[in-house]
């Protein structure tokens, strides 16, 4: 999913190290032990203080029921439709309101738990049969939709939810990547297709054409799997774009405040760019959870304030009561919190990174040596500093993020040993050599093109954009920088391949689930390019690499799979498919009187269903 612009939304190696320690995989990142926080190979380590490492959080079992939370986010939601949402900010409102089939509990980003389903499908419990070609999921009985639909959720609602993933009006960005191996998925257009069938009211069956059961099961925690009532959403889905999102129905403990008769959310529970209000879902019942995952839903209401300066929000959160910041704190706030309010900041080790998109389908960056020159020239340490220093970032040296299979195999913190990748401070000599190899004997770009650069305008994004621009200018490129709101950046420019924006320095990625596929496929596979909501920011389409990714998804042995994905990762660095920036650790801040529980799998964003007011 796409990352917050600011803040190293990418989980850095450090957090990854802690995570790896938890799930037992060995890697060089394990040397960054539980006591040390950020640390680059050359930079200073800044230790976490007690309670700051979100990887060791508890799930707040004894929270006080009741109360109202005010949640500040300087970034707006991109989509409220669970079929379209693909952004960490959207997820903070979606997961408390929509019950996906599976879910990661807040304190784990590796072990799935059942949510709407009764169990995670395995071979042992009969969930996986036919040698991995059939996946069967049973639904919790008695789960009801919120007003105005009010009835019990059935298997048909889950089937419809997944069907609409192929509907162009919905604009889902990962249907083909994660559900593409279901029977008939390749040609599905929003109607029923043979890959998803139901049996009775409470059984959903998935039929795969290839045994990629692990991929599919991981995808069952994506928002697309949250049930959608066809009688309510069908007419809305006929419009282009779909109006489901303006009108919504919930299945989670909370819902967007809406018109009780029509279910309209926009203008009532969501003022675009201004605010959102989440209230309790009257039809939600805590007894419909039978596994370890049982959201306590302490809060009565969540008021989301959208917009504003990150630095101002940070002050309000650190000094206020009853407030949290939902998106990335500004770099100066991170420092202030770490030094003066250490009990109010927590760092989430995670699986995210930031890198800039470089349009590979138009000049000049269709030339691989020019891309390599940019890779060599960028000062990644400066970008780390702009995000907040070693505490929150480490230089990006390849694309599989710390904490995911294949990170170590791909070179770990140092990454693959290509000449343009070795110096994280930027190496102009190497860049000049590559410019010459690209056909510019003077070592500087002499063409006529002015590069279009579109970056975010809030938080740390402008500073990072300046660093990238500085590298481009030193190579002789003329640049035209536009700083826009992040939703505009993704929605209108960087997420629309036709715009051919040359450089998008503020983009980033968080893995969708615990599988290297989810870091490399959607951002770098040609088949994942979609006309809107595109997340392959470089429009990268290499048939050889596409084929290798398809082959890697079929590998059952985790070690072999890790190696296969690492090989792909190395090739992506070889082809310099983006502007390298950093691996992130996400800081999350809250007021002193908030017992915060963050979702580790979603950059530690505060989980409204677990957080309480003290």
């Amino acid at each position, binding site marked *: 999913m796409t990352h917050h612009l600011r803040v190293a939304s990418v989980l850095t190696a450090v957090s990854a190290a802690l995570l790896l320690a938890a799930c037992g995989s060995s890697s060089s990142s394990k040397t960054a032990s539980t006591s040390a926080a950020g640390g680059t190979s050359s930079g200073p380590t800044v230790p976490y203080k007690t309670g700051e490492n979100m990887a060791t959080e508890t799930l707040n079992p004894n929270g006080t029921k009741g109360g109202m939370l005010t949640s500040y986010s300087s970034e707006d939601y991109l989509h409220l439709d669970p079929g379209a949402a693909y952004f960490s900010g959207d997820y903070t409102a979606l997961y408390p309101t929509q019950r996906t089939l599976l879910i990661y509990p807040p304190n784990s980003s590796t072990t799935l738990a059942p949510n709407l389903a009764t169990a995670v499908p395995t071979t042992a419990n009969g969930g996986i049969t036919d040698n991995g070609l059939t996946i069967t999921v049973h639904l919790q009985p008695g789960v009801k939709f919120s007003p105005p639909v009010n009835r019990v959720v059935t298997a048909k609602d889950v089937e419809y939810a997944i069907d609409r993933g192929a509907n162009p009006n919905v604009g889902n960005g990962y249907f083909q990547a994660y559900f593409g191996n279901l029977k008939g998925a390749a040609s599905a257009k929003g109607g029923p297709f043979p890959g998803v069938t139901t049996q009775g009211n409470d059984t959903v069956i998935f039929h795969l054409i290839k045994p990629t059961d692990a991929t599919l099961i991981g995808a069952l925690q994506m928002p697309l799997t949250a049930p959608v009532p066809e009688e309510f959403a069908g007419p809305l889905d006929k419009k282009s774009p779909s109006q489901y999102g303006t009108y919504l129905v919930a299945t989670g403990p909370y819902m967007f405040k809406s018109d009780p008769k029509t279910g309209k959310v926009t203008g009532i529970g969501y003022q675009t760019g201004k605010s959102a209000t989440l209230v309790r879902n009257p039809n939600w019942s805590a007894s419909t959870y039978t596994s370890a995952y049982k959201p306590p839903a302490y809060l009565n209401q969540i008021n989301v304030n959208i917009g504003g300066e990150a630095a101002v929000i940070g002050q309000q959160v650190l000094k206020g009561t009853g407030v949290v910041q939902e998106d990335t704190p500004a*770099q100066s706030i991170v*420092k*202030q919190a770490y030094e003066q309010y250490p009990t109010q900041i927590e760092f989430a080790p995670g699986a995210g990174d930031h890198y800039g998109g470089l349009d590979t389908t138009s000049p000049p960056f269709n030339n691989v040596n020019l891309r390599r020159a940019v890779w060599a020239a960028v000062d990644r340490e400066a970008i*780390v500093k702009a995000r907040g220093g070693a505490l929150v970032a480490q230089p990006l040296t390849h694309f599989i993020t710390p904490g995911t299979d294949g990170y170590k195999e791909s070179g770990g913190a140092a990454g693959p040993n290509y000449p343009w990748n070795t110096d994280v401070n930027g190496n102009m000599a190497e860049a000049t050599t590559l410019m010459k190899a690209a056909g510019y004997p003077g070592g500087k770009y002499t063409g006529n093109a002015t590069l279009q650069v579109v970056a975010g305008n809030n938080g740390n994004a402008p500073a990072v954009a300046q660093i990238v621009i500085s590298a481009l200018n030193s190579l002789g490129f003329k640049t035209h920088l536009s700083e826009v709101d992040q939703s505009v950046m993704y929605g209108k420019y960087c997420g629309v391949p036709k715009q051919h*924006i040359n450089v998008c320095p503020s983009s980033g990625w968080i893995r969708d689930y615990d599988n290297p596929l989810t870091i490399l496929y959607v951002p770098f596979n040609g088949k994942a390019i979609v006309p809107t909501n595109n997340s392959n920011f470089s429009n990268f389409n290499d048939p050889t690499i596409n084929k290798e990714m398809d082959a890697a998804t079929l590998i059952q042995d985790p070690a072999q799979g890790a190696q296969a994905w690492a090989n792909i990762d190395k090739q992506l660095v070889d082809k310099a498919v983006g502007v390298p920036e950093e691996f992130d650790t996400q800081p999350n801040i809250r007021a002193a009187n908030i017992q915060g529980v963050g979702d580790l799998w979603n950059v530690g964003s505060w989980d409204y269903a677990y957080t309480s007011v003290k």
Partner: protein
Amino acid sequence: MSAGAPELLLEPESVSESVEIVPGDILARSPRQLFWRRFRRDRVATASAAFIIVLIVVAILAPLVVKLLGLQGPNVQNPNALDAFGSPTGPSAAHPFGVDQLGRDVASRVIYGARASLIVGIVGTLVATLLGTAMGLLAGYYRGWTDTFISRTVDVFLAFPVLVLGLGIGAACEVRGCFSIGGTKLIQPGIVTVIFIIMISSFTYIARIVRGQVLSLREKEFVEAARSLGASNSRILFREVLPNLLAPLIVYASLLIPVNILLEAALSFLGVGIRPPTASWGQMISDATPTFSTAWWYMVFPGAALLLTVLAFNLVGDGLLDALNPRGDR
């Protein structure tokens, strides 16, 4: 405000003083000499004028000045000047005004920022003055439908919310620009658009003043005399009326410059002005806002430069106004 007719340049005192006349010690002075004499007596205005001249010289010779002071260039990013959290460090021997969030030297950027402010302030005012004078001349001299049409147009532009217009242009034309002619986009956030916005917002001020002046001038005897001699309208406009407008125009234009410098700073602050990384005081103040509590130098120095520049122009303008109109009734 009306400034009175140019005849006020005649100093009453030179007529009413009763002093023994000795050849050589009282010379008849031209209005211009009287004007400068009065201006020079105003110490504050003279000092401000000197400051402005120094500022202009520094702006023109910015690369040399930066080199002489031993500072880094304005766009040189230096992450080593940031601390472990990426926060900027304050004033030091190497960086007398501290650094900004990218490690760039603030003193260097303040010096280069003078260019943006002065160019936009002076050129924008010049363009606004030209346009306003033309419209005021035509409206005041020809009256009738011409006056009505021009005056209503000026009223419409006076009602324009300029900052909102700037924001709108910024939002709409940010990435691809608007209104292309032959491949080049005319409107894009940047220096040309800023000058355009300044022109729209200030020409109205000049137009109204000029119109008022022309309305009174056209009734004067020398204009009647010229007309009776058969002078054409354009000759009267350019030879009789316009020269008498020059002095007030200089004064009001000089009072307009600081307003426009502030407008440029405001537009840059809002993100629709000079494009980064080009240094601009407004942009620097905008960037400094989130970190003011921890990095005061980043806002204080460009803010002080802006304050002093605007103040200097205002004082010079007031000095010119006083020199033009010694009776003091405005």
